[in-house]
């Protein structure tokens, strides 16, 4: 049986709650398993990938850098909802990492085609 495809559905911003950060920790651990990982960023989840985050004045650890390490784990796909990015006045070159911009239908298909979806 080919490896299972697992989609991590990230829909929350990076700092208002800990979800983004602790979800990333699951992805990093998951990478060591034989899984086809799809990282999906939708709604406020797209904000997690925005460049230039500086959490020093807030006094909180900056975990955005960890996204750069992601490439090393070779997730099968890193996708961002185009519609959510544009609604927030953002574009692909505002992001920390190379991503696939998907329209709603393509995103729905990716999620639907994944064996498991983990929501954070």
């Amino acid at each position, binding site marked *: 049986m080919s490896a*299972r495809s*697992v989609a991590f559905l990230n829909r929350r911003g990076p700092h208002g709650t*800990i*979800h983004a950060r*602790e979800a990333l*920790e*699951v992805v990093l*651990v*998951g990478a*060591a*398993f034989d*899984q086809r990982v799809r990282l999906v960023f939708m709604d406020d989840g797209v904000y997690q990938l925005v460049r230039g985050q500086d959490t020093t004045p807030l006094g909180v650890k900056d975990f955005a850098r960890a996204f750069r390490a992601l490439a090393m784990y070779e997730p099968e796909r890193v996708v961002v909802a185009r519609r959510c990015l544009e609604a927030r006045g953002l574009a692909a070159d505002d992001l920390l990492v190379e991503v696939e911009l998907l329209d709603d239908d393509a995103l729905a298909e990716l999620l639907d085609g994944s064996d*498991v979806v*983990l*929501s*954070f």
Partner: protein
Amino acid sequence: MTRMKFGILVNAGPYQHQACDSALNFTRAVLARGHRVLRVFFYHDGVNVATRLAVPPQDDRDLGAAWQALAREHGLDLVVCVAAAQRRGILDADERTRHGRDADNLAEGFRIAGLGQLVEATADADRFVVFG
């Protein structure tokens, strides 16, 4: 109905959010329908259910005790994420010694383990359900 293996993830703290109640009721129903529960994994504030120091009011439900009873009756594997638990102060005797603390509070019936246990459950389960 074929017998299925369920994995369950609880991401929100007990009482503050309804997720823990929903997950408990759902898990009971999975067992009542004759399916198997591979593992219930508590992550984020969900770990806070696993303290033996909670004293809920008499006239209200005790979520920690309810999970313990269900686990005893059905041999459930209730796993608390070690990283999330440490950050929030849910320790067992080993963690207590390792971090030089003067007390521990893990409730019996829960075990502290790494995120690998979550990933494994997502791989082995036929159905994986998230509450949060």
